[in-house]
């Protein structure tokens, strides 16, 4: 193919890609902000600082903040086990890690109701001790955990597989203990991928609707997360309010994309620096 022949093909492909992005992503995003500011900046501020909105924001961030460290721990443990050891049930575990991606989030929510609802033995027992799970914050955290837990593991597994265990074995022979090896050898090599996985998990945690919707109970100011709050406002014909809250979610998304890009750039640079090895 000559350079000139390629030119129109290239422009056509770029035009299609940009056109698609514009119609499917940029326009809706712009619409969110236009609708949110439809009644002026004052109304926007009132909607965003409404107590119910702030409570939803608090709950969303709480759930995400609890899910993130647990995801990091689980992801590291799973990736370590799957890439450093060969054991019975290894492939089963790899399949199970993907389960939350495969099932509908609504089912994830229903699973917890079936398991921990007030009328189930486990839920009744917890209720007897004064711990409410379903229709309360713990249920929302559990549902968020379920839908986000594959992200970190899936980032780490291919990377650690590729890196192999030679470095760790070298550290073992040099007399390092398990914790020293993890801290000095393993973690520095997977740090960026770990953060990357956490960013993705975090985005999902903030945006999750289905699973959380089932276990939430929709108690305004108490068990509503931001996405649930958007739906309620919209169903109450308060579309400006709904879009104002939605704009918060959109801002989170933009921040996530920004962080992801910075990290991707740093990951690429780190890979290039390691090139020869």
């Amino acid at each position: 193919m000559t350079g000139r022949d390629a030119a129109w093909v290239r422009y056509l492909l770029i035009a299609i890609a940009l056109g698609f992005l514009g119609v499917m992503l940029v326009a809706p995003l712009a619409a969110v902000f236009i609708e949110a500011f439809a009644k002026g900046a004052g109304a926007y501020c009132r909607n965003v600082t409404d107590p119910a909105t702030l409570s939803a924001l608090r709950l969303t961030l709480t759930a995400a903040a609890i899910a993130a460290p647990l995801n990091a721990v689980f992801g590291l443990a799973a990736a370590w086990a799957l890439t450093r050891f060969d054991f019975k049930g290894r492939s089963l575990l790899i399949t199970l890690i993907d389960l939350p991606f495969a099932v509908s989030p609504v089912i994830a929510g229903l699973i917890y109701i079936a398991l921990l609802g007030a009328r189930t033995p486990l839920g009744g027992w917890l209720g007897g001790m004064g711990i409410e799970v379903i229709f309360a914050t713990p249920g929302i955290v559990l549902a968020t955990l379920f839908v986000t837990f594959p992200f970190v593991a899936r980032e780490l597994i291919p990377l650690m597989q590729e890196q192999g265990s030679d470095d760790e074995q070298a550290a073992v022979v040099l007399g390092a203990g398990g914790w020293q090896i993890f801290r000095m050898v393993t973690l520095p090599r997977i740090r960026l991928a770990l953060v990357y996985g956490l960013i993705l998990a975090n985005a999902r945690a903030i945006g999750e609707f289905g699973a959380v919707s089932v276990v939430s109970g929709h108690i305004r100011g108490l068990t509503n997360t931001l996405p649930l709050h958007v739906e309620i406002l919209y169903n109450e014909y308060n579309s400006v309010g709904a879009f104002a809250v939605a704009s918060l979610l959109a801002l989170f998304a933009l921040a996530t994309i920004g962080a992801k890009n910075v990290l991707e750039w740093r990951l690429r640079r780190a890979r290039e620096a390691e090139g020869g090895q």
Partner: protein
Amino acid sequence: MNIRLEHISRSFGGFTALDDVSLEIREGELVALLGPSGSGKTTLLRIIAGLDAPDAREGARIRFDGAEMDLRAGARQVGFVFQHYALFRTMTVFENIAFGLRVKPKRERADETQIRARVTELLSLIQLESIAGRYPSQLSGGQRQRVALARALAIEPRILLLDEPFGALDAKVRQDLRRWLRRLHDKMPVTSVLVTHDQEEALEVADRIVVMRAGKVEQEGTPEEVFHHPKTAFVMDFLGNVNLFHARMEGGHTGAMTQVRARPHDLEVSREEGSGSAVRGKVTRVQTAGAAAKIEVATEGGETIMVEMAHDRFKAMGIAAGETVFVRVKDARVFVEDYTI
């Protein structure tokens, strides 16, 4: 340190990597474990290091200076140089070498000044003082290899284990490094075991060679012994080029066919048939680039014979491709129990 391996076996699923191997490595020796891939040499090295354990069998023992060794790898005080270096890529050359000193338990750990002094000393030993601050990715293959060696030496190992240390380097660097390693060993005679599949490397570097095949020790001895007095056809084939002749035995076993092996330099080429048995053939190729002149002779039976001779003799004879010559065997070997490849 003296190392004794007694009745070591190791199998992975259905594959037997080591089959009842017993071996002694003497204080201050540099031993090469030589064999094709799959012969078990790396497995043996990893078992000495404690990175792998032998199958639990009656009498299976590893002894360091006579005492049975059952410590975990980190407590054995072993230096291990990995085939692909396994340098810590997020650390500088300096920190790589210092690693073994820094991870010691607090009671045994040297202070920062002592660590710096020790690392500097090792850097000068590997002649890389100027690049202490670089990262492994910024080094050449040969430099990485030397850093890996310095890192292994930092913990003052009682034994140094090297797994195909020059395998990933180009021929020239490889040769320089193995001479350097030999000189280093003469200066600092740490008991060392080197795994290699390169017979030239083993012959040049080692005090003693252990030839391995299919999980067993085929022969052990000095480079001279294994090269000039191979006990089996396998050892002879593995340690250099070999011409195979099918000959009829005379005397006792009249009529029986047997295989005779001769190295290319143990053959003689002449233009006259002369007395005694000689094989007649046609020169098909002459190659003079290299340490010796190499001549390929096609026999009437359709076999190809490789002959090596000194350049001055080659010049004096003036052999050219297409000529008819006679090849006579000066020295050859017959092995009773032959093997199949």
